[in-house]
């Protein structure tokens, strides 16, 4: 089976090269060659909404058409595939939705606040699918892992407890304002150096609000940044099961991790009661997980509204994106705070870092699988 696949790959490559060459020499355009090689585009998707999500997942998994970005974003997908008895495999998805659009991925990963909007909406960069897409929600499937949090190193928290508490207090005030005024928040983010259009920014803000104010069970949350014990535990349990580490030292550490090794609720509790003194360190920075966008609107709002200044902090928001590792940046002291997914913090601590989650901004998973109806 493997051998034949390889032989096939070699043959196809050789054929493509020859066809490209003949295309060149016979002065026909190379577009002909590419269209000639594209013979069939599997007409299997007979869209009927009656098909249950489970069947859909099983079918896509069997075809090898479940997409995810990998790079530490794949654990919920693994948990979902396992739930339906499928092999833990996915196709590596690019940071656009072209693979979903052209049908090479039938179940594509999407964040509710980002890719889902691009697929549905018709503004700049959108794929205009509207209500022709269906979603499978990780929260509903019971495989939710918590995402965007706020963290620093244990050492930093110990040395600068008041800075940490002041930073949480001002940031959560920013999140509260942003969730109450998503449109204004979107505008603030857009003006602060946004990576996407203002329309998409507004969509993102409205979706992020839902993630901050609803838990994995669908209940309303009023305490911004609260660490829900059960959801955190589920995240850790799933992480232990689906994060596969080749380094045996790290793998052993991962198995032994408890919630107390990765988070502390005390800083957030004090911050909410506003019981903190003058910050030890006043100039601080926060590393975002991605480019400036409404995903991080709370921090931009806190900065713009002067909430950080009010608690005596001068905050520099550092943009992420590409291959910037937020855990590494915080661990080596380049920045003081960071935003990451809880699973990424867990694998970093398993690998030997000493990071501490101090607030949990997103109360539910924002990951969904999208399919064409």
């Amino acid at each position, binding site marked *: 089976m493997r051998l034949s696949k390889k032989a096939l790959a070699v043959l*196809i490559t050789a054929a493509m090269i020859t066809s490209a060459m003949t295309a060149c020499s016979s002065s026909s355009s190379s577009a002909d060659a590419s269209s000639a090689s594209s013979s069939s585009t599997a007409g299997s998707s007979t869209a009927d909404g009656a098909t249950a999500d489970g069947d859909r997942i099983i079918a896509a998994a069997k075809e090898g058409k479940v997409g995810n970005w*990998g790079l530490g974003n794949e654990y919920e997908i693994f948990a979902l595939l396992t739930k339906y008895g499928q092999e833990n495999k996915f*196709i*590596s998805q690019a940071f656009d939705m072209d693979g979903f659009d052209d049908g090479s991925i039938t179940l594509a990963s999407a964040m509710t606040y980002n890719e889902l909007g691009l697929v549905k909406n018709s503004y700049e960069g959108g794929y205009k699918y509207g209500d022709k897409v269906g979603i499978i929600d990780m929260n509903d499937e019971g495989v939710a892992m918590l995402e965007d949090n706020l963290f620093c190193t244990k050492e930093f928290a110990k040395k600068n407890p008041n800075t940490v508490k002041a930073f949480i207090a001002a940031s959560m005030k920013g999140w509260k304002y942003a969730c109450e005024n998503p449109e204004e928040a979107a505008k603030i983010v857009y003006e602060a150096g946004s990576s996407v259009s203002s329309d998409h920014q507004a969509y993102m803000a409205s979706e992020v609000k839902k993630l901050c104010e609803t838990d994995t069970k669908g209940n309303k949350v009023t305490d911004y940044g609260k660490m829900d014990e059960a959801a955190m535990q589920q995240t850790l349990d799933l992480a232990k099961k689906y994060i596969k580490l080749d380094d045996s030292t790290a793998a052993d550490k991962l198995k032994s991790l408890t919630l107390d090794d990765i988070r502390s609720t005390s800083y957030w509790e004090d911050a909410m009661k506003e019981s903190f003194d003058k910050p030890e360190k006043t100039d601080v920075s926060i590393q975002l997980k991605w480019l400036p966008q409404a995903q991080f609107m709370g921090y931009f709002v806190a900065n713009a509204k002067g909430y950080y200044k009010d608690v005596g902090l001068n905050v520099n928001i550092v943009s992420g994106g590409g291959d910037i590792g937020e855990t590494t940046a915080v*661990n080596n002291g380049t920045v003081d705070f960071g935003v990451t997914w809880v699973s990424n913090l867990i694998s970093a601590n398993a690998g030997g870092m000493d990071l501490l989650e101090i607030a949990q901004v997103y109360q539910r998973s924002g990951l969904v699988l999208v399919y064409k109806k």
Partner: protein
Amino acid sequence: MSVRSNSKRKNAVQSAILPLAFGAVLVTAWQTGLLHKLLNTDEYVLPYPTRILTIIGENSDKIMENVWASLEVALLGLVFGSILGYLIAVFAAAFTKIGSGSLTIISSFNAIPIVALAPVIINWTKDVSPEAEVRSTVAKVVIVTIVCMASMSVNAYRGLTELPAFSQDLMKTYGAGRITEFAKLRLPNSVPYIFTALRVSVPVSIISALVSEYFAEYVIGVGRQIRENILIAQYSTAWAYIIVACVIGIAMYVLLIAAEALVLKKRR
């Protein structure tokens, strides 16, 4: 004669000892933490050699699976690219008027960064197979092929056209046709140039294979493993794959140098 070969051997020994000694010093500094102080980094981002070697030992099966996947892509691309590059050079040498111009275009392929080329090729090859594994392999091989093709065509063209003085006149006085001239004069003359091209394209084939894995749909390969592990902050494992990548590169280069010595020695 014997003096000459003696000094040659001395040279060879010297050229082996120095890098080895430097390597030994480097590894010692690395293991003792001196290197970390010099580079102002920690043992987290730059793990100790012993830890890296342990990981390589513990995961040899998985590592070999990834090595074969990367090696397969690099070698296939190298072979396809070199053959294609040589054929283009032959074509260019036969029709010099169009040839030299088209070579300029092809050599400009070398200037395209792989990170820009990879997504385009992956899109282009999307329909070749319903199996992600197959179409990803095809895409990666095509990327390596394009990159390797450029250096071969430019060098081989020089080998096919920059002939020893009067050799062409000599062929003409013998009444040799174009085919004979190619087989007896141009082809042998181009052999050293082929190796010059390979000295560039062998390392490049490995690098482009590793980078193209970043973008491929099917998740496999040494390059992909390096990126995955760095992003989930598993630097020790990432370093294990980095060391493996270095070993592949050095091994292929040594093989090439050995082959070159063998082939070119026979010619003399």
